[in-house]
């Protein structure tokens, strides 16, 4: 079996597409994170947990922290975007979520190439990451 004729020094189309989306997502997420952090720390938007209080919270475990500050876990932060601290989650969510879009974007390319196994693997990965992102998996101390 000789696979060499199929090989190229250049990355495959689906790999390049994945890279382009990942790059854009990374830049958007990072810029978003820096801007929202500046808004938060310069006090342009009032935080839910004041900056002075945060340093009293980070030494306790997450369950106690959420309970003491009355913060709901999961995607509840979407309903708290009027606060300076919670807007930072937009950038973090973009950084953590961009891979899902990368996987979904390469599926049509893989289908076009009749690469059935990788279509299934890419869809499975997108499902796994979406389940993780959904917050359906709840654990605690």
């Amino acid at each position: 079996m000789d696979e060499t004729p199929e090989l190229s020094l250049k990355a495959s189309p689906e790999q390049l597409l994945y890279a382009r989306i990942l790059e854009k997502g990374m830049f958007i997420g990072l810029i978003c994170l820096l801007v929202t952090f500046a808004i938060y720390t310069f006090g342009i938007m009032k935080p839910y947990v004041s900056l002075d209080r945060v340093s009293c919270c980070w030494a306790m475990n997450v369950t106690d922290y959420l309970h003491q500050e009355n913060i709901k876990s999961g995607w509840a932060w979407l309903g708290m975007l009027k606060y300076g601290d919670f807007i930072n989650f937009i950038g973090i969510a973009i950084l953590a979520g961009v891979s899902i879009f990368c996987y979904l974007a390469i599926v049509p390319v893989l289908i076009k190439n009749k690469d059935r196994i990788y279509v299934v693997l890419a869809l499975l990965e997108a499902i796994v990451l979406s389940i993780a992102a959904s917050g359906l998996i709840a654990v605690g101390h």
Partner: protein
Amino acid sequence: MEKKHRLWVSGFFLFVLFVSPALAETPAGGATADSHAWWFWPMILLIVTFIMGVFAVLGGVGGGVLFVPIISGFFPFHLDFVRGTGLLVALSGALAAGPGLLKMNLASLRLAIPVALIASTCAIFGAMVGLALPTNVIQISLGGTIIGICVLMLTAKKSVLPDVPQADRLSTALRIYGVYQEGSTGQIIDWKIHRTPLGLCLFIIIGVMAGMFGLGAGWANVPVLNLVMGAPLKISVATSKFLLSITDTSAAWVYMNKGCVIPLMVVPSLVGIMLGSLVGVHLLKIAKPTFIRWMVIAILAFAGVKALLKGLGI
């Protein structure tokens, strides 16, 4: 020049060992008032993660593996938040490097996809276990793991071009092979892998550990891809880095949804590590990597022992 670098390394070592614990009056695990201004710890975090980023590059390790043991050992943050932040630190490093490595065809998407599916699924399980177990159990396990990583770093050999006489059936069916040009010699190198089932099984363990401790898993990815599966070192390192962007994503979501993300910790850490990595890449040309690698191993070992003692309540 070598003396200058040794001073840098020693300075970092001394800072971590003596300055941080002296400042961290608050023992992790209990909520007590911190007398410092709100910006104090984020600023220290920015400085330490910047230095960490420099040494991560020079020492050939990922930011996450340095971040979790050092920050949890010497800073007043609870391990829950350190692990959440550690995953985001490792994730951001992978996101920054991933696109370039994919475009250069050094990271292989075909190799990464099946591996990532297993590792990311197991990382979710690891994160769930890590968040469900008592903190002291995690501290002890983290300490043991970090010491194990030190042993691995000291003993694991690397093979630039492993000998793969024949690709196994699974990797052939998945068409996991490729070609790349060695930059230093211009040589075109065909590569293929073997022992794929064994390699995939090992990624179950790697995924669980990455999720449980919030460590990036480059320290384990590279030996498995390179020594077990037989991918060339460059392909292994690049694919491992890209792989973290997927493995750590799944675990990061679990930690984020649980509430283990405090922006005042995350943003300075991300910025510090990223800026430090940029400086580290420039210093790589003139630095003495062997000495720095030894120092990184020494710091990690110390942080591992510290985590063990902390977990045991000593």
